[in-house]
């Protein structure tokens, strides 16, 4: 197989950007993706089979057949889980990765999110740390992500934000009814509500039209291609450069290394299941926190008996996502106007600065809700079945507002991905084994956040409010998965350096949420994108034409 400069593994948020940045800089790139390339024609509106409600399977992968994982509960009992089951911690397997079907909230973390240990100290039992980079380092790349991928919204209503040089490239979508109810209520409470940022066209942008405000949003591909992901922005640009070849339905097996411990290529199974070897100068792992860790752990050799980058048993640790808490408020008049995407208003007043808590989180109203989302979210005391349940569905469906947010998750080293000793996938590779739990302080934060959601909804006029702040019994990862290849300056306490390069292998990079030191009180995707731009810029700067400057 012809030698190329770079192999990028995973065509999601991070890998799509890395492939584009390298390809337009003149490097030859092969982009491997284990899933297919869906188009807007694959946007079937099936509320039982999509990426958010998966009773009948994942619409955008992985399929349930042949791709198990193992999850270990608090008692130590392990069980096999299928890709569409809850404990699997799935993202997606397709070109675009999670960005094809996500809700698309496009948050910048706050400056304090990069300085968590300095700001708060590390709670006992946690692995809370500072990042080796600051908000200011990342700011230009946040901006680049906002402009290249395309973000709409308006931060002007809040002082709780990091400094920025330019406004968002697109104005917010027109508010829905929930916005008009929640906004004055938040202001009465002394809060600072604003139009939340989203990777969604509100006006024509990047050659595609604006959102048509349908109800099929988070979990679905966009029928009119107004939702911006890597599949309709950077990946087409990468391909148009002539320097990038996208190979879909190709599953990476391992990173191959030479006698000196440097990567020399990637072994992968092609769409027909045949084992192939792609030689290259450098490897970029962008398979999402769980699969990136798994690939590194599966890349064993004489020099790396425990996997690449894993000299200090760090790969796979600090797995984190977001513990969501909030509340559902029930009103005595119709509110639901069926105008997508639904999520429209947010506050970041509570992300930092609460005495006794290590951070907080953003709170926002929920995306458009489909009837299936409401069957177990009825007012407290509603019957679970029978005529009473049917009547409660009718009474409550259009008369509620839901306010939720991702709690700042306090990482622990015990929440981790390892290789299962016995279970293998359809390619014969050891599968990810997920164990550990959320650090308990996360629940303290989540509880306070839920109480704040309750207060906001009551102020907005809700006649009854259900607080939702359940304590998870296992790790939280899922679509916000992060942390398994932590970024840091010290090779003994982190996996990659500030340029996303693995400490002890100078031509292997991890460019996805795996490198996050913590996950902020926000949806992580814009940070994944910004880091991908930053790491790619550094890589291109150090590229000599045949290899990296040493």
């Amino acid at each position, binding site marked *: 197989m012809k030698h190329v400069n770079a192999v990028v593994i995973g065509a999601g948020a991070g890998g799509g950007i890395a492939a584009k940045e390298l390809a337009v800089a003149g490097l030859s790139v092969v982009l491997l993706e284990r899933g297919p390339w869906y188009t807007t024609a694959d946007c079937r509106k099936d509320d039982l089979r999509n990426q958010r409600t998966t009773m009948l399977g994942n619409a955008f992968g992985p399929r349930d057949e042949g791709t198990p994982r193992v999850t270990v509960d608090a008692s130590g009992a392990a069980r096999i889980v299928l890709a569409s089951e809850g404990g699997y911690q799935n993202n997606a397997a397709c070109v675009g990765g999670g960005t094809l079907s996500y809700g698309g909230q496009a948050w910048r973390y706050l400056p304090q999110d990069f300085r968590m240990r300095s700001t708060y100290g590390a709670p006992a039992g946690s692995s809370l740390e500072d990042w080796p980079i600051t908000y200011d380092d990342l700011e230009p790349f946040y901006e680049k992500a906002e402009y290249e991928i395309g973000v709409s919204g308006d931060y002007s209503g809040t002082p709780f934000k990091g400094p920025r040089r330019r406004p968002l490239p697109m104005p917010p979508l027109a*508010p829905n009814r929930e916005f008009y109810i929640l906004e004055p209520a938040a202001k009465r409470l002394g809060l600072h509500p604003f139009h939340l940022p989203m990777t969604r066209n509100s006006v024509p942008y990047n050659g595609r039209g604006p959102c048509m405000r349908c109800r099929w949003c988070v979990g679905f591909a966009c029928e009119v291609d107004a939702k911006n992901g890597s599949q309709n922005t950077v990946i087409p640009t990468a391909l148009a450069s002539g320097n990038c070849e996208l190979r879909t339905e190709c599953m990476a097996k391992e990173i191959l290394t030479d006698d000196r411990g440097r990567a020399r290529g990637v072994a992968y199974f092609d769409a027909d299941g045949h084992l192939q070897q792609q030689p290259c100068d450098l490897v970029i792992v962008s398979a999402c926190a769980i699969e990136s860790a798994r690939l590194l752990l599966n890349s064993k050799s004489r020099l790396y008996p425990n996997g690449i980058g894993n000299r200090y048993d760090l790969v796979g640790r600090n797995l984190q996502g977001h513990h969501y808490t909030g509340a559902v408020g029930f009103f005595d008049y119709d509110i639901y106007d069926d105008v997508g995407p639904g999520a429209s208003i947010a506050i970041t007043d509570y992300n930092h600065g609460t005495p006794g808590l290590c951070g907080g989180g953003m709170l926002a109203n929920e995306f458009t809700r489909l009837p299936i989302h409401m069957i177990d979210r009825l007012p407290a005391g509603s019957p679970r079945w029978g005529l009473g349940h049917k009547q409660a569905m*009718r009474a409550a469906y259009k008369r509620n507002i839901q306010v939720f947010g991702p709690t700042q998750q306090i990482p622990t080293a015990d929440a981790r991905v390892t290789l299962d000793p016995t279970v293998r996938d359809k390619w014969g590779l050891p599968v990810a084994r997920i164990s550990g739990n959320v650090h308990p302080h996360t629940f303290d934060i989540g509880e306070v956040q839920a109480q704040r959601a309750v207060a906001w909804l009551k102020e907005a006029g809700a006649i009854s409010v259900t607080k939702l702040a359940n304590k998870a019994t296992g790790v939280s990862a899922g679509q916000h998965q992060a942390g398994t290849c932590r970024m840091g300056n010290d090779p003994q306490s982190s996996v990659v350096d500030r340029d996303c390069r693995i400490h002890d292998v100078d031509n292997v990079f991890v460019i996805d949420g795996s490198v996050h030191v913590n996950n902020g009180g926000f949806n992580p995707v814009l940070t994944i994108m910004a880091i991908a731009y930053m790491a790619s810029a550094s890589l291109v700067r150090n590229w000599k034409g045949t290899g990296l400057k040493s």
Partner: protein
Amino acid sequence: MIATAAAGSALLSGCFSAHNSGWEFLTDSNAATLKAICDQIIPADGFPSASGAGVLTYIDRQLTRHYRRHQKVYLAGLEQASRISHERFGTALESASPQQELAVVTALESENHQFFELVREHTLEGYYGSPRHGGNRDAVSWRMLGLDEPPLRGRAQYDLRKGSPS
């Protein structure tokens, strides 16, 4: 289009299973018992019951597809429901009175929680989920909840409503 698809699949399954009238997995007797249970979970009022909206078709189809793994639990649960009905009321569940049916389903909820929870979940999915899987016939539950069906498309939907500043 939905009706055509349903008829098509009924014909198709009829070709392969001689022992029942159009079900892919259930026997007629299974189906009668399941209908009684589903219609207690979502009874008829001004709007159709579970079975009236096609929930049995939904469950039956998925028991040969995504829910194959639940076949055993269903067969055992349906048999148990039938047994409870015979023991308490001396009649098959489908011939029992509505009050008796409710008593049997309530008993089932505590005596075979796993089965009851599955049927409850699948009934609600079939009733409130996408019509493409055979349930929620003609999107009846969506209309019941006041959703426009088919949905109004494009910005017209928004502009029809008050509050648009643009």
